[in-house]
């Protein structure tokens, strides 16, 4: 077996996604480059990826969030950007995680709306808005169904 010598040890990588009428993925990347100070930025179709030491990455993420606070979403990534092991070009297909992002980004507008709505709520208002947890749908018990139908 071949030995493995890792690259980018001690760094973190974060995905920055944007879904906004006001901010394009390119705006995000440009803004990131402006404050990069040597930190690695990779522009993507959804925003950018930032790789560097945790403090630097956090500084850039905070800066980007300010651009469009409710419509920018940030997530940790295990791999550095463009890694051949996960790269679409090398695998002939999207890595599985891509589809997961596609799935969650579909609800970005709802969450953005929610973020904006709760932003200035007091603790009481927040508690009220939280209300009961969103119900988790259980499959309807056959006996109950029968009973309902009879009614």
């Amino acid at each position, binding site marked *: 077996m071949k030995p493995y010598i890792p690259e980018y040890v001690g760094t973190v990588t974060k995905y920055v996604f944007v879904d906004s009428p006001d901010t394009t993925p390119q705006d995000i990347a440009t803004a990131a480059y402006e404050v990069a100070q040597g930190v690695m930025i990779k522009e993507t179709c959804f925003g950018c990826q930032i790789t560097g030491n945790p403090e630097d990455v956090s500084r850039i993420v905070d800066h980007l969030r300010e651009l469009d606070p409710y419509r920018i979403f940030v997530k940790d990534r295990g791999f550095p950007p463009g890694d051949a092991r996960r790269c679409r070009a090398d695998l*002939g*297909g*999207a890595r599985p995680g891509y589809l997961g992002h*596609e799935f969650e980004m579909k609800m970005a507008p709802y969450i953005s709306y929610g973020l904006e709505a709760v932003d200035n709520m007091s603790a009481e208002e927040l508690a009220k808005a939280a209300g009961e947890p969103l119900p988790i749908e259980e499959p309807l018990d056959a006996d109950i169904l029968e009973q309902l139908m009879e009614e």
Partner: protein
Amino acid sequence: MSDRPVRIAQITCGAEYSGIQNEITSAAATVGAQMFYPDVALKDVKTAYKEFGLPVKSPDLKLAIARAKAVVEGRVEADGIFIASCFRCAEAAIVRNELRRYIVENSKIPVVSYSFNERTGASTLLTRLEALSTIAKRRELMAREVQVGITMGVDSGSSTTKCVIMKDNEIVGTGWKPTTEVLKSADDVIAEALAESGLKMSDIEAIGTTGYGRFLIGKHLNADLVQEELTVNSKGAVYLANAQKGFATVIDIGGMDNKAISVNDGIPGSFTMGGICAGASGRFLEMTSKRLGVDITELGALSMKSAGGEDVPMNSYCIVFGTQSLVNALASGYKPEDVAAASCHSVAQQVYEQQLQEVDIKEPVIMVGGSSLIQGLVRAMGRMLNTEVVVPHHSQYIGAVGAALIASGFVEKKRAEKKEA
């Protein structure tokens, strides 16, 4: 034939997390193939999953369904398909089986299905991926139905080495020996076959090798064809059984592992290879004959003296426990012929449970390899499958016959080259 790598669509669940993805990729690279994931979008997954209609809970299995459909429907091109999932996962086993069936029924793309665990290494996967890549790459050679010229096939198996010389579509010489030193055993069987045929080595126009020792012997003989036993054996089987058109199922219970191959028009479509333990292989029958004090060649006749031995408690799922039940059966007074038949029944049962569930059984069912000469085993398999099993002549030489047949595809080209020179 272009030199572009054979592209094999990987439709798996759990490979990366079992730590074996690298083994799959390297095994493929060794045989000049390239694994790739068929690209699908989220909406494809949703549609494909709904259309396929098999409810599953694991997202990666939904993804597998979508990937298989993308290949079968031609949205993604692939030369072969490798379907695999974790051993012991029931949900994945159902999906794997249904996808394999779906691919075989709806496309001509060769497919191999496999269940792995973390100990699955590149060497285990090699033969399977080699077969897949051979079927994809060498369809022309595989389509050969008639042997021409003078060719030789050498099959270096885990237990025995075999050689066959063919001339103008006839077998004219054979050699057979237990495998000891790989090269020496090969040289011995070649000498035997040449002597029987009355030919000299210089008369041989093309050579094919197969079996575990194929690479070593192939190099030693400067063979034209060095090919794994899955495709070679199935080719040899349908050729000898005269079943080159339409569907057939080939079963080869070997000394170390078993093969079940579903063939369509002489070309393998789907196959499995393996066995959890030697208890499901010819090795267990060797142990039985030793314990009964008869030669392995007499075990078949002995077992036929019994009605079938199904009432003798015998389970060779594991060779150690199988041997224990063998000893117990004898100690409890069962007759040797019943014990012999019970061993055959148990091996057939293991093959049925472990392998035949992974291929579609279509008649004729052809049994080949040395173990096909053990009549009790053939009878047990026939009863299990409720069919008359076909054992072609020279079935013990199957790999060598297949290699000689396929190698004859090189004869005309070589003759032309010779003329030019």
